[in-house]
């Protein structure tokens, strides 16, 4: 394995970790609420811009700024759920989906009006040379943090859903909302939890993405379409599937373009080619059968 390959794998892991954070929120929202949240990408952008405000404009340290950004994100998530998605929850799933498209273009336009079309940056991009298994690779501190934190969050989320009382309650609502209600579990509460967690994760991804690239109003869209593919790749509603799908897409993108197997102009198409190929071979997704009962 050459150093180029090692570097490409590292880059792919970073991208995969960020996609995974976004995809987790999407798959949770789909699993419990039953629709695809198209405005999830704007939550990523929200995270990046909120962090930029706290860190760059108010000159807070990185950690308090990040915590403040996550808090803002969670609050926004709770408000969006309550104001927009709760009233249409019992309708045909097409309706919250179309509504979230409306939300998405509205939020993008708001970002454009407040921050203008100029490109903003957070990081100064200092690279560290890092040695893993005897291979030298270049990594920024934020990338190392992104990988570390996303693994912690993914593991934590799986444990949370498996072991804690609230996690079991969320899975109960996901698997059958009306039966869960008969047993006295409030759907409203479950939705609040899901949107809080989902948007929180998207905001964290947004903060790290802000270190990786420039801030622009559409940054979230590019991220969320990849996350959609990751979610479908792994089977909609499945947590482990979304994580696996995300890393698959991150690594495929990085390796296929980096080793010039595919010309770089085509890189944006890679997630979808994988996705469509996957849907043809195994439409239920990688984890489809096992999680079939999560939501129908």
């Amino acid at each position: 394995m050459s150093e180029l390959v090692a570097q490409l794998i590292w880059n792919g892991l970073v991208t995969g970790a960020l996609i995974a954070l976004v995809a987790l929120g999407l798959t949770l929202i789909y699993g419990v609420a039953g629709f695809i949240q198209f405005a999830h990408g704007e939550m990523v952008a929200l995270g990046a811009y909120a962090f930029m405000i706290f860190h760059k404009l108010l000159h807070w340290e990185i950690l308090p700024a990040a915590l403040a950004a996550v808090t803002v994100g969670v609050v926004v998530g709770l408000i969006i759920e309550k104001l927009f998605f709760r009233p249409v929850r019992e309708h045909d799933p097409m309706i919250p989906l179309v509504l979230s498209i409306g939300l998405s273009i509205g939020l993008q336009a708001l970002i454009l009006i407040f921050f203008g079309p100029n490109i903003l940056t957070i990081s100064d991009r200092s690279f560290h040379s890092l040695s893993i298994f005897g291979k030298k690779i270049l990594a920024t501190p934020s990338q190392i943090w992104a990988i570390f934190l996303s693994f912690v969050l993914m593991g934590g989320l799986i444990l949370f859903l498996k072991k804690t009382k609230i996690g079991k309650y969320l899975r109960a609502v996901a698997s059958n909302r009306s039966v869960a209600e008969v047993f006295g579990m409030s759907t409203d509460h479950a939705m609040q939890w899901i949107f809080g967690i989902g948007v929180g994760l998207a905001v964290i991804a947004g903060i790290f993405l802000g270190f990786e690239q420039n801030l622009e109003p559409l940054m979230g869209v590019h991220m969320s379409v990849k996350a959609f593919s990751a979610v479908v790749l792994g089977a909609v509603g499945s947590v482990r599937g979304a994580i696996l799908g995300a890393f698959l897409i991150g690594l495929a993108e990085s390796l296929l373009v980096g080793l010039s197997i595919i010309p770089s102009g085509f890189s944006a198409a890679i997630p979808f080619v994988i996705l469509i190929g996957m849907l043809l071979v195994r439409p239920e997704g990688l984890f489809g059968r096992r999680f079939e009962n999560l939501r129908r």
Partner: protein
Amino acid sequence: MLSYLFSLLIITAIWVLLVQSYNLSFGLTGLFNLGHIIFYGIGAYTAGILNTRYGFGFFENLLFSALVAGTFAAFFGLLTLRLSGHYLAIATLGAAMIATVVATNWVSLTNGPLGIRGIDEPELFGQVIQADSFGFLLLIPGVVVVCNILLFRIFHSPFGRILRSIKDDETASRAVGKNIFEAKMWSLVLSAAFAGIAGTLYAHYRLFLDPSIFAIPEIILIILMVVVGGRGNFWGAILGTILVVIIGEVPRFIGFPNNIVGATRNILFSALLIGTMFLRPNGLFTFFQKRTE
């Protein structure tokens, strides 16, 4: 001012056809295909390429782009129609992304980001119809009206009722012996053919094409128009299109600074979409319809 109204009218007419074609597959049959814009783009590129390289005229292009878009839709359908609901939405959205990438990078066919320039204006009985002439005002809306009459016939034919039954209850429709896959396929192919015709109209009006024709904002706009008018509602789609076009022109007249006109327009669209979903999820024009249920 007059030329502004003129171009608004032509553009609205092209939108009406594109939206009505989408209304056939998305509205009537309930296929949540987020990639409809691909067929429009393919129609436009077919017309552009056939015209600039092989000298095909406007009327031949109407036929050929409908054929190419329809044939493409048949393959597209083979790939995607097995999927249902949200899976279909994501896969077709992905297909639209792939289309942008292909149109940008397949330079030998599409001339890449530079686009195709110098498409001829339509010609009728040896007479060139210029884009700002009165003849143009008859020609484009004329084609749109003819196509809409055909679409109206499809909407209200027995076949149209099968499509409606698929949206309402696919299992029940299958239970009474309808071939669901075949009906969905025909719905997609016909819808694509009309979208291809709309694309030809666009190509011969703008005389210039580039990959931005496949962009996500365009997809959102046609969804908005169908949903505001009412999914599966023939007259609703037309009224929805006109309403959205008019609302989209408002920020220009209020006198917002140029750099935020686009953003203001999107905020209006967003409010319109969210408002429609809250107040009348079946479209703003459902009150023109007789209550049947």
